[in-house]
């Protein structure tokens, strides 16, 4: 009997004896960590949802959900990005549920075929730079500029296990896809040059260190991460609205198939994605929601950020099954 089974047995007997105080909290897997996870847990509690968030890196959670497929430990998955959610859905791990806030959500963020994955906020993956030492003119104007000799050793590529790294690598690669969606040799040449020109690291500390010791000037990062890094290292960030567009990733929520608390899970999803909670989160952390009603209720800076950059058109559902192969090629033949 698993721990979860024991808990269930306890909670069942608790319900039978007329006391709900023993009810098991909803287990939520999410890459939201630290103060963000604390905030969500506290707000949920205030709204009557008893949850525990297990937070870990996006790709670690993804692997874990796949590994636990026979015996799922999570009730809800929250905050994995488009490609990961698409893969987990295609593995048959999610339960259908149309959240109350699906109405009014733009079609790209809905799941009109399977009714499983709904997106709640988005973030661009940007080219940013240390504006204290680099002018806007000298900064790259496009992702494809990075291979130029003047940027050698000035930008960092992190671990391919990170959602951010994967997203921008895919964003660059898809520009080189042929009619079948395969990457051309020109694209792989570009990728080799990109890696040759870069500082390659595989830990967050090494990434920060590259900026602290002044080697790295250009930060390829998700929007919120740019500000966080600039603040901790102590420089003024500049952000490039790149030619050819900026990859946007959106994070989704879904209910795990086989959850023993489907009603609580549905109630939590309905609550979490609602414009009120989304705008409150936006106020707290500056994250841009995708629901128009939530954007309208958000602070002005967040509203401005929502239209700051030109999005790159990426069909994540089509790309998702190819990403593993691309990352393998990068890791084994290019890196």
């Amino acid at each position, binding site marked *: 009997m698993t721990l979860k089974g024991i808990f269930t047995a306890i909670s069942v007997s608790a319900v039978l004896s007329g006391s709900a105080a023993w009810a098991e909290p909803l287990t939520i897997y999410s890459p939201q960590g630290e103060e963000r996870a604390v905030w969500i847990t506290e707000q949920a509690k205030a709204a009557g949802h008893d949850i525990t968030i297990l937070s870990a890196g996006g790709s670690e959670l993804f692997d874990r959900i796949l590994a636990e497929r026979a015996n799922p430990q999570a009730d809800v998955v929250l905050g994995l990005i488009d490609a990961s959610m698409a893969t987990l859905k295609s593995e048959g791990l999610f339960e259908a549920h149309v959240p109350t806030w699906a109405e009014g959500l733009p079609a790209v963020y809905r799941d009109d075929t399977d009714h499983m994955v709904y997106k709640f906020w988005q973030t661009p993956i940007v080219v940013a730079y240390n504006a204290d030492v680099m002018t806007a003119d000298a900064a790259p104007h496009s992702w494809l500029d990075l291979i130029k000799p003047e940027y050698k050793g000035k930008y960092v590529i992190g671990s391919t296990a990170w959602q951010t790294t994967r997203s921008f690598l895919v964003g660059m690669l898809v520009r080189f896809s042929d009619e079948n969606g395969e990457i051309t040799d020109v694209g792989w040449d570009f990728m080799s040059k990109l890696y040759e020109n870069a500082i390659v690291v595989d830990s967050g500390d090494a990434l920060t260190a590259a900026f602290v010791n002044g080697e790295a000037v250009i930060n390829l990062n998700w929007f919120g991460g740019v500000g966080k890094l600039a603040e901790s290292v102590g420089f003024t960030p500049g952000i490039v609205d790149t030619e050819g567009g900026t990859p946007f990733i959106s994070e989704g929520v879904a209910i795990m198939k086989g959850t023993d608390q489907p009603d609580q899970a549905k109630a939590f999803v309905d609550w979490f994605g609602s414009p009120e909670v989304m705008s409150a989160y936006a106020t707290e952390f500056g994250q841009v929601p995708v629901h128009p009603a939530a954007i309208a209720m958000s602070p002005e800076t967040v509203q401005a950020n929502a239209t700051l950059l030109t999005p790159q058109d990426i069909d994540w559902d089509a790309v998702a099954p190819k990403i593993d192969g691309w990352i*393998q090629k990068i890791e*084994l*033949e290019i*890196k």
Partner: protein
Amino acid sequence: MRAHLQDFRRSPVQAVLFLVVLWLAASFIYGPIWSVLRFAFAPEGKPGLGAAAELAASRRVITAIWNTLVVTGLSIITVNVVGLFQVAVLEYLKVPGRGFLRFAYSTPLIFVSVAAATGYGFVYGPTGALTRIIQSIYPALPNDWFSGTFAVVFAHSFLLTSFHFLFLRAAIRRVDYATVEAARSLGASNMRAFLQVVLPVLLPTIFATTLLVTYKSLGSFSIPAVLGGQRFDMVSELILTLNSLRRPDMAAMLSIGLGAAVILCIVAMQYIERRGSFIGGAKTPVPIERVRIASPPMRTLVTGLAYLVALIQLVPIVLVVLFSFAPARSIGTEVLPSTLTLKNYVTVFSQDTAFVPLRNSILMALAAIAAGILISLFVVAMAQRVKGAVSNALDLTFMIPWILPAPFVAIGLILTYDEPSQLVFGATLLGGFWILPIGYAIVAIPMMIRFLRAAFLSLDPALNEAAQSLGAPAYYRFFRVTLPIVLPVIVLVSGMTLNSLMSEYSMSAFLFNVNNKPLSIALFEGARSTNPELAAINMVYIVLIMAFSLLTITLADRYGLGNGQEKR
């Protein structure tokens, strides 16, 4: 077989236990091996060599294999040079301060695996004490000067000398000093006597230790992972990468390659062991005497070198111990800590995040040891009681993991148990707590069987017969006669296993997850972080591991097991 049936008829409990052990062998030894072979040679159910072709096409795989071969080739030379020099200094030459040198040269016995790698990283790494000292004199030294092939070979040279310390010292003591005297009376110098008289006698032992070094270096995992740097892979590490890239077929194929290389080493080792046995000294050898180096400059040079080697081996340990008592802020800012505190130790034992890996490692090691001892006892006792093919086959089955590198076993477990398996009644082990202790038990059992078999062989059969003639039934004889006699061996082999599992890295890196993160993984993560708090906790972990090793080795030495190991 008939003997077994008779045995089972006498004792149905034996029959049940036999079935349980058969099931364990099928599930955790043959199942994983079968999975590795199946994924490597027929990933989609159709036989093919696609995985091998893809490995050959990958630049990173080829580089990793090349790195492994280069590191191994260089390590064989450097480890032998350092190891032979140490043995000569300790046992052949008169060098002042022999006790101190012996202590320094024995440290690779307790400073092992990921703990040692982390310690070296702490001294020579980008923010290490030595790096900063050199940079203050020579500012152009890059932060990552200690990385790649150089760093790994350097670490191997001073960490893999434990075999020389154990076996070669024992061998040189068996050299007949009369032969050395004879050579010298014929006019040979010290050097020449050593090279032409002593060395040839040592040669079989040198071959054996060289093969052990080769075996260790081929499978080297934590040292390149911690010290190799960003773009340096060796084969074990790459098997892990392939697995995380969701290419189990390529990981399986590469682990077969590593396994083949290791098996080749072991076969060669046994061949040489057998051939070397005819080289013996005189019937009544004159014990070797240490000679005084005649030329003063030469004497100074040898003494200087001896102390330099001792220094290289001691400095990381001394710094680790010192900094484990230093406040976190002094790590990376001070060369020697200016104030001492017990705060880090309090943190490890009081703070959940710091204590959990320690607790996990102890729990998993104890579970693995308990299971391993029970299985080994059953296998060895059965082989003693009922001689025959079945017993031998079972014994050999549990010895298989001895010749398989840890990544091979780990990949096998992953591939067998990443989905519900009938072998374990529909459970999925991957991602759970138990998969890692199971892996630990698999690699620990061969050594347990070796020691227990030796203990059982030395039992006086008359004791058992006496008990039998007095009417004691089998289980009673086992618990009241056999077990008390072999108990010290059980305790010691458990201690030695616990010791090696506390810093086990190879199996752990593949099988750990959030439910069971062990000490070795916490050490590895701490070693790659720039957070001084984590570094401080790491120092405490290393000191605890070393203290524990020291305790078990001292105990083992006292009970005479150290000699048993030399016969290995």
